[in-house]
């Protein structure tokens, strides 16, 4: 899993590529929480290059989503495709997240 981040107009752009397995999910969690501790509260997660996710990755996104809501921030997810998109639908998280 590759996790590239940069800040554009006060929004953290998170560009993911590869498979988001349990070990990568923890690295993603730590990265995003560090941004939140530094005052960032708006996130855009690009997932068009992600070819695998499971409950560990979904759980991290839920966790960050909850924290952003608590501080009036936002988490937007874009570009899910194929079976990754199906898993968001299967778990009904497509109704929870702002997915574009």
């Amino acid at each position, binding site marked *: 899993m590759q996790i590239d981040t940069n800040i554009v107009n006060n929004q953290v752009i998170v560009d993911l590529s590869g498979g988001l*397995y*349990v*070990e990568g999910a923890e690295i993603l969690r730590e990265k995003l929480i560090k941004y939140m501790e530094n005052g960032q509260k708006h996130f855009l997660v690009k997932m068009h290059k992600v070819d*695998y996710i*499971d*409950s*560990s990755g*979904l*759980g*991290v996104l*839920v*966790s960050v*989503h*909850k924290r952003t809501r608590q501080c009036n921030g936002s988490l937007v997810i874009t570009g899910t495709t*194929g*079976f990754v998109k199906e*898993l968001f639908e*299967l*778990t*009904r998280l497509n109704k*929870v997240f702002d997915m574009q």
Partner: protein
Amino acid sequence: MYCFSTVEEFSQLREAVREKLTEMRVAGVDPFFVAINEAVNNAIFHGNKQDETKKVQLTITSWPGEVRVIIRDEGQGFAPAKAKQEEGLQERGRGIEIIRHCVDQYYFSLEPSEVVLIKKVINLQ
């Protein structure tokens, strides 16, 4: 049979497992692969409680018309009836739901502590 104790060890085996499923003409390799990863994560984190002296065994077997994957840990077993379906903003608890949707059949055993995941194969006739 594949044998490992940690996620890091299993990460070295994932591609071989996926290739094996493809070779065995599993109908729907992607969902089956997700179910296997979910079950392996459960075995490492909940079954063996990340005790690196304990092993997880993953066995892939071919049966008439289907492939069975057995994931066995050294824990106390898992009773799926106790697993509640989580909704909305719960961070954990989606693994069993994902497994249920990604396989044709599955069952848990308490002794030994294992889960069996079953998926049909592509019929070439």
